[in-house]
């Protein structure tokens, strides 16, 4: 067996004979270690499953009945989450989805969960936006010993949540907006107008604090008088009315940077800034629904883009998590499985929405 180098020119790229011998000796040991680490890897894999990749490997049973309770049958974002769940279920092949809609009515949501449990579901995906009714839903699940997760919306006590990485994605949203502002108006210290929603709990509030933290990073030492928090309740009208009033604090001619908790709230802030006569306005929408995208298209002088939250991925991940919970009871699953999303600028929005 030739293990050395035959020519002078090859020597530089060849290992000495002794090294090859050593490798031969080590090979069986290495294989043994690999086998061991493989089993250890498998053990690690089952302890921390790949929550966000539903595959046929999740089909430990012939069929799973998964309940999906959702607050709206028509809201576009909820629709896309539902489509994500259905698509993932179809690709896995062993999942039947049973869906109920409560039209954003808490007691109906709780009653729908009871109905789903009586229909024999193995797990539940809960997409509601009314925080106060979530404990009641969690209680029903606990007493029926049904695992589940929440598409956030609102948190489901005791169960993981799948949704936007609220703080982080808003941070990215704010960062992109502030960077754009710095490029376009390098010497101007802006006024940061942030749409908040204190009625939907701390996670959604992270959208405000995240964006603000990023803007403060780009503009270190931003005076507190340049930070204006506007309560929006997640609604365009409330955002508009409150921003219209709050903008009285901002001197005319200032550069204003606008972000909100969703596309509609951001739109309300923008309309208020226009109505108050501001010219230097930069907006980064948050959510990326059709309205937000249409604003990116039609108001491209002001909208630098929209942070797209990828609702299809939310549905896919929510199904994956609940199947992992059913297959591996008692397994530790992170409290939040977050989807970061991505910035969509006009060129990206054009392909989807601009006409």
């Amino acid at each position: 067996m030739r293990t050395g180098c035959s020519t002078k020119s090859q020597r530089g790229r060849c290992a000495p004979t002794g090294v090859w011998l050593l490798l031969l000796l080590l090979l069986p040991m290495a294989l043994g270690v690999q086998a061991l680490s493989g089993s250890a890897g498998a053990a690690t894999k089952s302890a921390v499953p790949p929550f966000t990749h539903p595959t046929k490997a999740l089909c430990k049973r012939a069929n799973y009945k998964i309940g999906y309770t959702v607050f709206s049958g028509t809201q576009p974002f909820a629709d896309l989450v539902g489509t994500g769940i259905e698509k993932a279920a179809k690709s896995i092949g062993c999942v039947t989805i049973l869906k109920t809609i409560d039209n954003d009515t808490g007691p109906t949501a709780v009653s729908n969960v009871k109905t789903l449990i009586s229909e024999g579901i193995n797990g539940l995906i809960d997409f509601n936006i009314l925080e106060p009714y979530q404990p009641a839903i969690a209680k029903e699940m606990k007493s029926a010993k049904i695992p589940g997760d929440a598409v956030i919306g609102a948190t489901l006590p005791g169960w993981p949540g799948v949704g936007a990485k609220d703080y982080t994605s808003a941070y990215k949203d704010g960062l992109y907006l502030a960077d754009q502002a710095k490029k376009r108006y390098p010497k101007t210290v802006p006024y940061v107008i942030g749409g908040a929603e204190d009625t939907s709990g701390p996670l959604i509030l992270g959208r405000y604090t995240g964006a603000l933290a990023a803007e403060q990073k780009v503009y270190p030492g931003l005076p507190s008088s340049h930070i204006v928090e506007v309560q929006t309740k997640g609604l365009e009208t409330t955002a508009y009315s409150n921003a219209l009033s709050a903008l009285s604090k901002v001197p005319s001619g200032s550069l204003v940077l606008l972000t909100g908790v969703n596309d509609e709230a951001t739109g309300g802030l923008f309309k208020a800034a226009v109505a108050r006569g501001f010219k230097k306005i930069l907006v980064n929408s948050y959510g990326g629904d059709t309205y937000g995208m249409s604003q990116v298209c039609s108001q491209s002088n002001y909208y630098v883009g929209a942070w797209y939250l990828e609702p299809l991925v939310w549905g896919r991940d929510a199904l994956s998590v609940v199947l992992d919970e059913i297959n591996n009871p008692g397994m530790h699953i992170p409290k939040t499985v977050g989807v970061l999303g991505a910035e969509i600028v006009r060129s990206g929005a054009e392909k989807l929405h601009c006409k």
Partner: protein
Amino acid sequence: MKEDRVLAQPSVVATTNAGPGKTFRELEDERLAAEGVRRVARNRNFVRRLQSQGLVLVFIVVFVIMWVSSPYFLTTGNLLTAASVVSILGIMAVLETLLVIAGEIDISVGSVMAAVSVLLGLMAAAGMNIWLAAILGLLFSAAVGVINGVVTVYFKINSLVTTLGTYSIFLGLAYALSSTSTVSVGGQGFDVLGSGSVGSIPVPVLFFVGIWLVVAVAARHSRLGRHVYATGDNYDAAVRSGVRADLLRVGLFVAVATSAGLAGIIVTSELGAAAPQIGTSYLLSVITAVILGGASLRGGRGRMVGTLVAVAILGVLQNGFALLQFSTYLEDTVLGCLLIFAVLTDRLVRRAER
């Protein structure tokens, strides 16, 4: 009836007061009765004054607090902004006041706003002229008013129940038709309704002031106004004295719904967007403005000046809370407190009148 007899005593006393031959006891009884009547009248006047001037006092207190708390509050631009924001609520509150005086209530205004906004968006998206769409939206809201009025008046259903039903129907319709999505609406100068101004006065303020003036004058100085009060005060008596109370009430329902439609059109114009959520925040504030302004839920009582002051209070609160960056929870709490204050004052007035 018992109260009526008590109140009737003074005239009896007055006619017999001068009569000769009375015992000391009779004279003493008459003196005590007259004093009691004077005390009741004094109480009544005090509570009435409390209701009307107390409202102005509340306005002044709120205004001064905001003035002291925020240096940006007392500027022309900010006050005009506050007026513009609250005008939407005011447009509906003025006509709702008339309806409440007539003894009815309409809680479907928020859903009518939403439905009109969504219809406007759909018609504009289908290529219809936006102004024509707005007129059709107004006609639609008037039709909702006819439904509310006819069901309440001719089928003798409590107006709270009727309008709760139509609230649900038209809100559901708005959500279903829009798929809960927001649609951009604009062009053809449509934004002038919500964002335009004449001089420095925002157009929504002009709408509000115009409607308030017409309704205030009509309520105080026209036969129609007297009929509204008469219907709310005593329906049977009003009908017996020739008031066409049923038709009047239907007409008021139509007026309230049309005002909600107009508010929906103005909000759609100022946002440049049609959405089913636009009426969500108005229901509680419209009713609060009406009751805070002194209109009694039992009918027969209410003043347009009161509604104007109440709308101004709500406007100052909304504006001040936004300037001071207060939580929305606090705003809701204050609104609730004001509502209870108003109802308690109404109860005091009623009690004093007995």
